[in-house]
């Protein structure tokens, strides 16, 4: 019952988000659903206990959900053989760029508040080195 009720809520938010998307909001339906769902949780309209198990279950088995699309790569051998260099280069360049931007900016601005600084130091000890 827990799973059923939670899944129904998730599907409801997805359908709601998709309806808004079709009505002209330029953000994907799933993301609109996510934002509404987040607001409902943050405002307390939706109890976390109602959706915890269904959400965790769906996220844990997300890999299953993108198996069919990934299998579609079998029809793209020709495109991949022509474009692999652009794809791999774009992947590596962008990966390094994001990692550096977020890590350096994060190191610079995240520990500024004194309370956070202490917290971060405690948690960080023992892991590195």
């Amino acid at each position, binding site marked *: 019952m827990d799973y059923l009720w939670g899944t129904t809520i998730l599907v409801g*938010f*997805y359908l709601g*988000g998709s309806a808004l998307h079709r009505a002209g909001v*330029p*953000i*994907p*339906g*799933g*993301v609109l*659903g*996510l*934002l509404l769902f*987040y607001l409902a949780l943050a405002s307390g309209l939706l109890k*976390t206990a109602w*959706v915890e198990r269904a959400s965790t279950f*769906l*996220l844990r*088995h*997300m*890999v*299953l*959900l*993108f*198996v*069919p*699309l*990934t*299998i*579609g*790569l*079998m*029809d*793209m051998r020709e*495109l*991949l053989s022509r*474009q692999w260099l*652009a*794809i791999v*280069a*774009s*992947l590596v*360049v*962008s*990966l390094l*760029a*994001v*990692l550096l931007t*977020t*890590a350096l*900016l*994060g*190191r610079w*601005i*995240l*520990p500024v*508040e004194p309370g*956070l600084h202490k*917290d*971060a130091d405690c*948690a960080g000890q023992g892991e590195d080195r």
Partner: protein
Amino acid sequence: MSASFWAGNPVVSIAVTLLAYALAIRLHRQWKWIPPIVAACVPVVAVLLMLREPYSLYNRGGSYLTWWLGPATVALGFPMHKHGVVLRRSLPRLACVVFAGSIVGMSTAGLTAWLLHAPLPVVMSAVPKSVTTPIAIEVCRELNGIPQITIAMVILAGVLGATFGVPLLRLLRVHDDRAVGAAIGTTSHGIGTASLVRQSEMRATVSSWAMAAAGVFTSLLAALLALLMRW
């Protein structure tokens, strides 16, 4: 037996995919280095090729599974809320970091592919490559990219970041748990986050918040990009 057995029956597609996934999970538990997505796809592709069942027929059933990526995207709001409560004091700064990472990720991915003369659909498929799969696919569709290419890039970004991300950051002397979590979550979404769970709770918490936020920011930025392109 081939044509009459399968012949685009959606139930058979779903059953075969579920079976392959269940086996892939088993394999992954036994040998950690085998990515479940690869282990799940290879046998299905092999069976499809052997029975000469075209992908389009298989996908009549497959698309029912794909549909559930929508509710899975919504479900991301749950960890975002749960971890947002823990992190509430640093959320504005964290959001800035993730936002900057999202802009840099989208533009460098798109520009690199474009500079190497990739056709527009491939360029657009590269743009959402840093974010979690269900959101990346939605963004890719909005931008008229090719979802399969996006998925392959998303998975590679996850595996590469999970493997080399933390050692690279250590080399750069980034040790702060929040910075590491934000960087890995923004770069390598769920796959990266999973790799942090054993390191520290703070890293994993920041990373899962960052992964969901990066997805939201990227889809907002992509909506803007799509508007500009239509102009």
